[in-house]
C-alpha cells in the first residue's frame, strides 16, 4: 500500500519534472510541452514500454497526460492486432477516453455553475 503511494509520487513527480524542463530549458509554451509529452507517451507505448511503467507506478503513470497518448495508441494497436490496418483508425478511442469525456462533461457543468473570474488559467 504505502510503497505504491511512494512510487506513484516519485514517478508522477518525475514526469512533471520532464515537463518543467521542457518549459524552462527549451522555452516551450505549456501547450507545446503537453503535446510533446503526449507524443512521448504514444511512442513509448509503440515500443511496449508504457504498460510496464503503469504496472510499476499505478497512478504515477496513469494520471500524467502521457497516459493519454499511451491509451490512444494502445487502443489502435489492440484493434490493429484483430482487424489489420483498418483497426488503426477505428480502435483509437476504444480503450479509454474518460479523460476527454469527463473534461467535456465537467467543462459544461463548470460553465453552468461558475461565474467568470478575471483569469481562471
Amino acid at each position: 500500500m504505502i510503497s505504491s503511494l511512494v512510487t506513484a509520487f516519485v514517478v508522477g513527480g518525475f514526469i512533471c519534472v520532464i515537463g518543467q524542463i521542457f518549459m524552462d530549458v527549451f522555452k516551450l509554451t505549456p501547450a507545446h510541452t503537453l503535446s510533446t509529452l503526449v507524443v512521448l507517451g504514444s511512442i513509448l507505448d509503440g515500443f511496449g514500454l508504457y504498460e510496464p511503467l503503469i504496472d510499476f507506478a499505478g497512478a504515477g503513470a496513469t494520471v500524467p497526460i502521457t497516459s493519454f497518448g499511451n491509451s490512444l495508441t494502445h487502443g489502435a494497436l489492440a484493434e490493429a492486432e484483430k482487424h489489420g490496418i483498418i483497426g488503426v483508425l477505428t480502435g483509437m478511442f476504444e480503450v479509454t477516453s474518460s479523460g476527454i469525456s469527463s473534461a467535456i462533461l465537467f467543462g459544461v457543468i463548470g460553465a453552468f455553475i461558475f461565474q467568470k473570474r478575471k483569469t481562471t488559467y
Partner: protein
Amino acid sequence: MKKSIIVFLMLLLLGACSNEKEKVIFPADNSASLKPIMQKQETIHGYKSVINEENILVAININRFARFNKTKIEEKITKQIEKQFPERQVLVTGDQKIMWEVESIIDKKLKEEDLKKSIEKIKSLSKEET
C-alpha cells in the same frame, strides 16, 4: 515526535517484509503439489490461492521493482502451474483487486457452489480491459 514517526514507519516496513501469513492456499488439503511451485518463485513475496475442481486462482504479491515485468511473471508462473495441473484452468495475477477478492473468499471460507460462483466472478473481472 519526529523520532516516533520514523520508528513507526520502520515498524511498518519491517512488518510488511516478513509475514508468513501472506502465503495461503485454500482449501489447504489441496495444496500438496502447488506449494513447491510457489515456494521457489523469487520475484514474489506472498501469494494467496484458491483451488476447486476446475480452477486454480493465484493472486501474487510481486516485489516492487519486479513489477515492471508483471505480465511476464504472471505468464511464467501460469505455465509452471499448468504443467502440474493440465486439466484445470489457471489464472495467475498480480492485481491488488483480485488479491482482495481472494482474501475475502478465504475469510468467508466459502464452499462448493458459492466458491465456484465467486471464482467465475473474479475470472470475468480480470478479463475486462476498459
